[in-house]
């Protein structure tokens, strides 16, 4: 918290123009990530988490309309796009499809260094081998010669993490890095991320639909719903006293956050709203057991507190 922010997002809005009117995937999201800090983003699928990540990285299709400001401290002018893959890196949800199938691991890893650091091929391969060893791949030299389909899912995710760390980024955006993996492998990958954060002194933006995944790693947690931030708080405070009813519901669904990671998250009743839906009031009102006429009518404003906590609710849970 105390460190200078490496990433600041202000009033970010992402719209995809469609034939039935624009679809608002992200609406007025603001957040910041300090240097070396791990911030978690939690929300059901469709809450705009992935769209937010892609917007940060400048990876949205050119047709998308992006408003608001994203400032990345490591880039001249603050545009993450210019230092993508170097100072800011991203790990995706599905390791099965995120690696190019016809290229060997060595080739896919070394090209990052060849491009960003102008390394020679041999030096890039040596660096790639060393990084594979650091992420706990048993036979790193052999792994470089493999094709992606010859590796297990967990190994592939390790490769992807190693690949993203090659240039020593200041910020790693990890979008559901463990969702596609077995439970035991999930734990290993999360441990790996925690260790690398300490060793490399890099910030992590950890995105998951699963509160338990984020719980162990993130110092601060941002809860998203329907493309908006509904609550943000230090992890400890969030778990012990959620103020927004949605956060409370999420916590109720996740078993003991300090205990074993559940294989499958119990789900909230009802459906999360689609990105095309428009609201006059609070987007969560329809599923909220505390909602009143006012919730359905006027959008709740974001209220910020001194302890770094903020939430948007007309009728918050008592502190």
């Amino acid at each position: 918290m105390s460190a200078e922010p490496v990433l600041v997002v202000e009033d970010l809005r992402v719209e995809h123009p469609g034939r039935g009117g624009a679809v608002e995937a992200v609406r007025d999201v603001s957040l910041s990530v300090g240097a070396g800090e791990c911030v978690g983003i939690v929300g059901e699928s469709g809450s705009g988490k992935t769209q937010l990540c892609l917007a940060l990285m400048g990876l949205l299709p050119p047709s998308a309309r992006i408003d608001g400001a994203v400032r990345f401290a490591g880039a001249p002018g603050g545009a993450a796009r210019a230092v993508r893959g170097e100072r800011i890196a991203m790990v995706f949800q599905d390791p099965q499809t995120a690696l190019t199938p016809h290229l060997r691991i060595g080739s896919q890893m070394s090209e990052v260094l060849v491009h960003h650091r102008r390394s020679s091929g041999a030096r890039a391969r040596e660096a790639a081998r060393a990084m594979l060893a650091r992420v706990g791949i048993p036979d790193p030299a052999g792994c470089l010669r493999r094709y992606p389909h010859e590796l297990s899912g967990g190994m592939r995710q390790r490769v992807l993490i190693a690949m993203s760390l090659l240039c020593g980024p200041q910020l790693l955006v990890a979008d559901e890095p463990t969702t596609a993996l077995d439970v035991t492998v999930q734990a290993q990958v999360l441990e790996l991320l925690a260790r690398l954060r300490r060793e490399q002194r890099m910030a992590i933006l950890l995105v998951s639909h699963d509160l338990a995944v984020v719980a162990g790693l993130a110092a601060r947690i941002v809860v998203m719903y329907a493309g908006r931030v509904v609550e943000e708080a230090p992890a400890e405070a969030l778990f012990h006293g959620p103020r927004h009813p949605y956060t409370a519901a999420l916590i109720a669904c996740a078993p003991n956050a300090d205990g074993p990671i559940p294989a499958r998250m119990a789900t909230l009743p009802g459906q999360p709203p689609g990105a095309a839906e428009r609201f006059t009031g609070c987007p969560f009102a329809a599923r909220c057991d505390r909602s009143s006429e006012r919730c359905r009518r006027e959008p709740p404003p974001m209220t910020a507190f001194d302890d770094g906590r903020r939430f948007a609710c007309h009728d918050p849970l008592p502190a």
Partner: protein
Amino acid sequence: MSTVRPVVTLGRRMPLIRYLLFRVLGAIPTLLAIVTISFFLIRFAPAGPFDRARALPADVVANLDAAYGLDRPLWQQYTSYLRDLAHGDFGPSFRYKDFSVTELIREGFPVSATLGAIAIAIALVGGVGVGVVAALNHGRFVDHATIGLSVVAIAVPSFVLLPALGLLFGIELHWLPVAGWDPTSIRDYVLPVTTLCLPPLAYIARLTRASMIEVMRSAYVRTAFAKGLPLRTIVLKHALRPALIPVASYLAPAVAMTMTGSLVVETIAGLPGIGRYLVQGALNRDYTLVLGMVIVYSTLLIAMGLVVDLLIAALDPRIRLEA
């Protein structure tokens, strides 16, 4: 849109030599079935090689039949044809007197094959290039123009295109010869090759565009973008190879068709290729010539099928060669 991905399912550790042996041996019964079907089909068609508009005297036809062995029972003719075939002899032509089918094909095939190979090479390079550019500009003017032009290129019949090109570049502008053939003069190749390559070029462009659009949306291309690689590297190194797989499947029939010559192009341009033999032979009941051409075409098609399967295995390491 007629390309269906070949399903190559053979064992990983299978040595290439053994795979090739399996495939070549497996092609023999296919080829034999093709020869047999063609042999009996053409023989059951009404009329024979010596039925002309003005009927020959019956005894002349009988003598000719005897000379070519057509008076023997059909199954005997079939077995003796196969026996000759096994020795590499396609038999004498019925229509081109004093020529054996082997000689006709040996003389004409290099012409057709050269033109066809050049045309397919240009179509491949040009089509892939155009398709990639269109895909990268998906939804914009370049893309729409590519689709429109490709449909026109596929739709214009060669018997319109070649004379039209001849009219423009030969008769009006005097840049190129309209007809005639000197295998050493590059100028003679331009119009026939252009006519031959345009439809496959357009088709390859469409195939490449469609698969490239899909690949550019894939997760691994997104990873490559996230790595900060330049567009050039992403397209050439990450996206192009998988996008070429549908093109590879299309290549087998395209090569077999184009290299066995085009009747239209060779007739209009006056080229001494083999393009006309298949149609002429079938129309004239030149039994041996038709069969010879069918065998050349089928062999080429089967061989290209094998080449394409190897190509696809090279494009995608996940595909295993199994016999």
